[in-house]
């Protein structure tokens, strides 16, 4: 099965989502800047969102047993969650910056075992 010749379907979306997810995960794992880490998180979440939307789409999977609007709803839910999380995370980062004059997550190791 050659994806390049196939009409656009679920698999393509899944590939895009997987790439976004891996990119996000790598971004989280490699960035020392806290903002970079946050961006990675956004990527991971949105990668997951693409999967949800794709599986939930009536157009991409005609004839499949409908799941209704579940995929879209969960995607919206994740977006709201991501917004809330970003707000909290940015607040933490700001405070961290105020205390350490830096946003380097490697310096935030006061809770280590």
């Amino acid at each position: 099965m050659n994806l390049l010749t196939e009409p656009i379907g679920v698999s393509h979306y899944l590939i895009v989502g997987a790439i976004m997810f891996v990119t996000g995960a790598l971004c989280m794992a490699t960035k020392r800047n806290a903002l970079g880490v946050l961006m990675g998180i956004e990527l991971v979440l949105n990668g997951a969102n693409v999967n949800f939307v794709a599986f939930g789409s009536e157009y991409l999977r005609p004839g499949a047993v409908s799941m209704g609007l579940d995929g879209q709803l969960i995607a919206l839910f994740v977006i709201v969650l991501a917004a809330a999380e970003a707000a909290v995370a940015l607040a933490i980062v700001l405070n961290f910056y105020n205390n350490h004059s830096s946003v380097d997550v490697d310096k935030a190791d006061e809770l280590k075992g």
Partner: protein
Amino acid sequence: MDPVSTLPVLLGLAWLVPLASFTLIVLFGPRMGKAGIGAGYLATGAILTSAILSSFSLFFVWIPAYDMPEPSHPVAADSAHGGAHEAEVHDEAAHKEEHGDDDHGEQHAESSHGEHDGGHAHFDKPEIAGEWYTLGKFGSLRITIGYYIDSLTVMMFAMVTFIATCIHFYAIGYMHDELHDYVDHEVTLEDGQHLHRPGRFHRFFQYLSLFCFSMLGLVIAGNIAMVFVFWELVGICSYFLIGFYIERKSASNAANKAFIVNRVGDFGMIIGLMVIFATLGTFAFGDVDADGDGTPEPGIFSQVRSPENDYALVVPDGVIKAAAASEIAKGVEATPEQIQSWREDMEPGGVGRWAYWLMIIAGVGIFCGCVGKSAQFPLHVWLPDAMEGPTPVSALVHSATMVAAGVYLVGRFFPFFVPEVLLVIAIIGCITLFVAATIAITAVDIKRVLAYSTVSQLGYMMLALGVGGWSAGVFHLMTHAFFKSLLFMCSGSVIHAVHTNDMTHMGGLRKKMPWTAYTMLVGCLAIMGAGVPFTIGLSGHYSKDAILAQAMSFEAANPMLGWLFYVAAAGAAITAFYMFRLWFLTCAGEPRDKHRYDHAHESPKVMYVPLVILAVMAVIVGWSIYGTPVGIQKLLEQARPMGILTTAHGALLTDLVHPDEHLSHLEEFHVASTWYATLTGLAGLGLAIVFYGVRVLNPAEVANQFKRVYKFLVNKWYFDELYNVIFVKPVLLVSSRVADFDKKVIDGLIDTLAIGTRMIARLDDMIDRYFVDGLINAFAGWTYAVALWFRGAETGRLRQYVMFIVLGTVVLFILITFYLSAPLAPSLSTLEGRP
């Protein structure tokens, strides 16, 4: 004023005021004024209030309310034995008049109606019986605070509170040493110093108040259970007061002796109580409507002497039923006819005989308590030792009131005693009066002379009651209280002045302390029974005459028991002798101890004014109130229990006759006994003058002459030694053996057990420490090690955490894909919508 409603309130108040004083002194005693002097004033005020209430009750409530019995006309001598019995005819209609129920609804009174009938005035005794409060009910057993008021009660109230008031005033002066720190010269400590201790003024008055409360409670008690409670309360007060100088070995010993000897008597009393309750089913004296149904339940007295039987002593149904318990168990119905036939079954072994024996046991049991309290032979040994207490106590507790409680109780229970019990009482009284009088002759301790004199006079009272002279015995109780408390207070005044009890160190004190000496002389004359025959006399004159007359009347009826009279007459002579010996040795003659004489002085006014008051009372108390026939004797006639004014015959000792007390007023007894009393008194007085007044005979020489007798008397008939050998030594021996057993066997056993327990505990401790704790500690250690190991993972590097998350996800993914795919596959295929 209506006595039925007012007297219980007045006398109840008079009874409770000393209790209030006691409570206040217990709580605030040491803080009352300087060194607690306020306690003395409080107690005195309280008893003065009681005295006023009691006197008011007697003179303004009781006497105006009730008629006195008509003068009695002794019947002719030939009808003396038996004739008088038939003379008792009762008018049923007239004899009882119920007063309307008052607010308690429980009180019940009989009003008096004088009526002439064949020589004996028919007269119904006025009495008020009722209850204030029910403490508890247990089946048929009711414990109540009740009252039984007749003229004897009211008179006892007036007498006790009057004397107690005098003694309280006197004690304020006498006990002033206790107001500051006290040096007890009779107690030497180990370092040779005398004992120094804080004064105990308030405590003395605290006990006096408690005593007054208890004594009044005993007098007003409406049932025998209450009597017993207050009986023990006066006993414990006596114990406290004898042991007032507790640091003195002799005082604490005397207190113990008094208490223990009294327990012996009380044991008998409890037996009597049990018999009474088990057979009669009630403790109450009078008829009290306890269940509120409008008809009073019969008390002890009306069960024994019921109005239906003309108040003759009949063995009550309850006693018969108790004696016939085995018959009833066999199914025999206890119908009235059956009970009557049982009652008449007086053959040996018959039911009636057993029932009569029960009556004797109950009577003698009650009397046992009286023997202990009134210091009768053989329990008389405690009273002389009780003189270790302060003198006001001796005057109040150990002569005038508490020891008279035994006589009072015999008087109260008189209707219950069958003639055989009365005979026991008479014989015990007679022995006591003689033994104590002889010991008093040789005693040199002034208070001991008076103590033996008290014992002897109490013997007189018991004798009088025992030979059927109810009013004679109780009359002597009243008069004796006045002159004996007077004599004790005089002796206290003397001791206060010369600081010794030993009469051989006194003498000639009448010049130094005239008030004391001459009031004491009045007391001696009163106890001797001085008076002009048939005209006038001191109080003792009347009461002693009455006793001798009754003893003589008894002698005429029972010639075999005539010795009771002769011993009593001899006792009268001895009484006069030892009393005047005492007076001559202390107040007359030349001083024998110059040093003490020089330091002697008259007591303060607060002490000798009560002496004068009591001296006046000792003279006049036998007289009737001027212009009226009312006097103690008349009041006692009024208080005489119903039905005892007859000639009674014994049922077991069929020869025993108790003559009607009014027969003693017959010319042949009355005149003769008056002469006997006067002449024996004069003889004793003469002997005393010969020995100690003009000293014609030297007492020491006479003592030498009768060395053995003298020694016997000085050693008090060897009673203490005898009891020591019979009771004290064996008890001590047994106790020391028991103590040894306790120490060696029981303690050893317990110790072994304790050691065993300790060993087991130690083993248990080891198991606990090494096994249980070890296990728990090992778990904790492992947990700790694992935690330490995991700690390494927490590096604090965020990117590493993300790595872990990603790796974990990947691992999970692989696991789910390759190892858990089978269970998940169907659901995945359904999702895809493909078959």
